């Protein structure tokens, strides 16, 4: 009998190959690289907030209310970005606020990803009643303007940061369900799944060991993009007074409190707004880069 010689030219683990291919693809996108750098800085800021921040985010300096930033007349180096109406240091509040933003993003993504993937897999595996039930429920959620639905949910649950996160997660679930279901149905048609079935593999095994790992690429992309949506929606709820409650230094609620000073102390509105903008923008850029690198349908024509 003849034996084919194995081609071991690439003597690296498959994971290393996949990662290096991914990195090669990802770094072609300069916007995504910039986003990654900015996001890295935000993460560092959140982790070391206690060390970096010059003041406590909630301590009120009664002697220094509405101090402008250092580059404006009357600014001082003690409060680099100025203080708010009750004398809290804006820079410290922004630095601590990044913690809340990341916390909101991570929790929301965790909830909506796990629930969404589960429902999506169920819909893909159990055609008929279960699928219809899940997908129509998702259609109903999608039929509401997302912020309005989140607002209604928070109104029912009561205004707090935790409830706002739950509400946002619920609003984001349908996207994950749809992506998971579509991808899983495509994978279910492939022969490796049939092969596993002929071995007698049960539904759980097919779902989590065979199908799910092959559905991850678009889910990772969606998770990244939803991360920024979650931050934005949380800020919006905070601005409407339905999210984080004072004195929590959450960027959205900081904007809400600062609204009445928009003409007299414009830095109080501008700076938290910029913080939200920069964070969301960099996450979106990373998401786009991930999509280019991970989603084969979006891959640019290669030789």
């Amino acid at each position, binding site marked *: 009998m003849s034996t084919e010689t*194995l081609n071991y030219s690439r003597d690296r683990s498959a994971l290393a190959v996949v990662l290096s291919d991914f990195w090669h693809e990802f770094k072609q996108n300069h916007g995504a690289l910039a986003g990654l750098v900015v996001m890295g800085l935000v993460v560092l800021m959140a982790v070391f907030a206690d060390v970096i921040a010059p003041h406590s985010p909630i301590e009120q300096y009664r002697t220094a209310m509405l101090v402008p930033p250092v580059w404006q007349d009357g600014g001082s180096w003690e409060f680099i970005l100025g203080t708010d109406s009750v004398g809290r240091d804006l820079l410290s509040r922004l630095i601590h606020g990044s913690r809340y933003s990341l916390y909101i993003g991570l929790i929301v993504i965790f909830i909506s990803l796990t629930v969404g993937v589960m429902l999506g897999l169920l819909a893909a595996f159990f055609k008929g009643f279960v699928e219809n039930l899940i997908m129509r429920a998702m259609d109903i959620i999608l039929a509401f303007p997302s912020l309005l639905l989140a607002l209604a949910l928070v109104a029912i649950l009561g205004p707090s940061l935790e409830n706002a996160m739950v509400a946002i997660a619920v609003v984001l679930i349908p996207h994950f369900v749809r992506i998971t279901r579509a991808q899983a149905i495509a994978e279910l048609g492939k022969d*490796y799944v049939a092969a596993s079935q002929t071995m007698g593999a049960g539904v759980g095994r097919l779902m989590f060991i065979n199908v799910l790992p092959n559905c991850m690429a678009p889910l990772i992309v969606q998770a990244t993009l939803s991360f920024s949506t979650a931050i934005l929606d949380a800020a919006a709820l905070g601005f409407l007074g339905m999210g984080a409650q004072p004195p929590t230094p959450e960027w959205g609620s900081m904007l809400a409190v600062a609204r009445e000073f928009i003409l007299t102390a414009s830095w109080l509105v501008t700076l938290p707004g910029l913080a939200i903008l920069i964070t969301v923008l960099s996450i979106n850029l990373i998401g786009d880069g991930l999509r280019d690198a991970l989603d084969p349908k979006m891959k640019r024509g290669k030789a």
Partner: protein
Amino acid sequence: MSNETILKIDNLSVSLPSRADRAFAVEEVSFELYAGEILCIVGESGSGKSMASNAVMGLLPKPHVRPVNGRIMFENQDLLTVSDAEMQKIRGGRIGMIFQEPMTALNPVMKVEDQLDEVFVSHGKYSRAERKQRIIEMLRDVGLPDPEIIGRSYPFALSGGQRQRVMIAMALALEPSVLIADEPTTALDVTTQAQILGLVKDLQEKRGMGVIFITHDFGVVAEIADRVIVMQTGRIVEQGSAEQVLNSPKHPYTQKLIAAVPHLEAVHKSAKEPTPVISVKNLQKTYGGNSGFFGGKGRVVHATRDVNFEIYKGETLGLVGESGSGKSTVGRCLIRLHDADSGQILFDGKDINSLTLKEMMPVRRHIQMIFQDPYASLNPRRKIGDIIVEGPVIHGAVKSEAMKKAGELLELVGLDPSALKRYPHEFSGGQRQRIGIARALAMDPKLLIADEAVSALDVSVQAQVLELLDEIKERLHLSMLFVTHDLRVAAKICDRIAVMRLGEIVEYGETSKVFNNPQHPYTRALLDAVPGKAWEGPQLEEPISA
């Protein structure tokens, strides 16, 4: 055949991007095409045969793949130096091309006549009325019935063969002097393939064109070629007249390829003990038929009707037929990937078809399947070892012992046991198919179902895998259901054969009887359609494979 040279390729080299596995797709290739001949370029996948023709058409994937050396002389110009606008005129106008997959090569949202019209319009020929008439003529020329009706159809409404005819009509619309056909019959059924080959030969003779016909199938070569070029890894290893290359090949690679072509002759196998391992009685399976959303009746397709057969211990039963004949459905019903509507499948005294999924579990051990596409049948995210031991572990084996056995199985199928820790993408198609076989064997099956298991493989790899299957079957006393559309392969491996057509078995018997004395007209038509059936192949000594 005249000796007038119409296309001359001189020392052509085409470079590949730096990340590819070799530096040149095509290296120092020189050949000539004479008017009125069919020149076949043969080679296995990756041999550069399509790249050579794409270079002629200026269709290389820019900018990474480009010609770096040589000349392509056509009508006193070097095609490598003409401008894009010039090339546009030559392409389609003077050189026509047809592709492998007629569905993707036609625009799905345009009517056939509009697509043909576009060819004329883009080359600025004829008035509207003339064009209309020409289109009808063209469609009639390629043997399409009712050209007016076909012209007004969309591509999806046509069969594969009809689409390929439309493609040919498009390629020949402007009466080119050279036609390049890149595997035009590979995606077609054998009877349709025979018709298309006949058509190409016919048109070529009528118009005196030169045809470059790219194929991997030596049967096709034997059917139509005047001259043959054999390519291996970007180089021409042999060229000569068809007679010479097919019957007295000089180069060892050509010899190896030709030796790997299975012959249509049925190998007579000793009669096996006729104890049935599995017997199928009146198997029925229909698809569709559910009423639609608005209460309309869906179309009912009878995938199988009243299928009866038995597989004996230690034999291979071939299930042959064209696409849509229901042969794969039968295989999948046996293993309960599909549920049959009615009928019995008796295995070990139990009717598989009436078992619940739980009762089916112990039976699954004994029936295993090998799939067609070696790229889709292995989970890309799991290591080979995990893939192979999945079945035994589900059935309660200890993982470490199963792994040990998996290593032995890999050796049995001719792979190194170190493959256990690797991922599927690191293996070639043939190697993956071996892994698929090892996975099926890990369950200690009594019956193997091979669903087109060698159809996606190159001919030399195909021969090796067939040999492996045969050897394993003998050694482990397995029975096998071999589903295939390829009669040559069936002749080589099957003891008995069942011919399927439109869901029914029309002929069933020993391979030698079915092949030498076919009773049903459909079987005869199938056998007649096998390309190059008259070619026996040279008596070569079995080359030593690497």
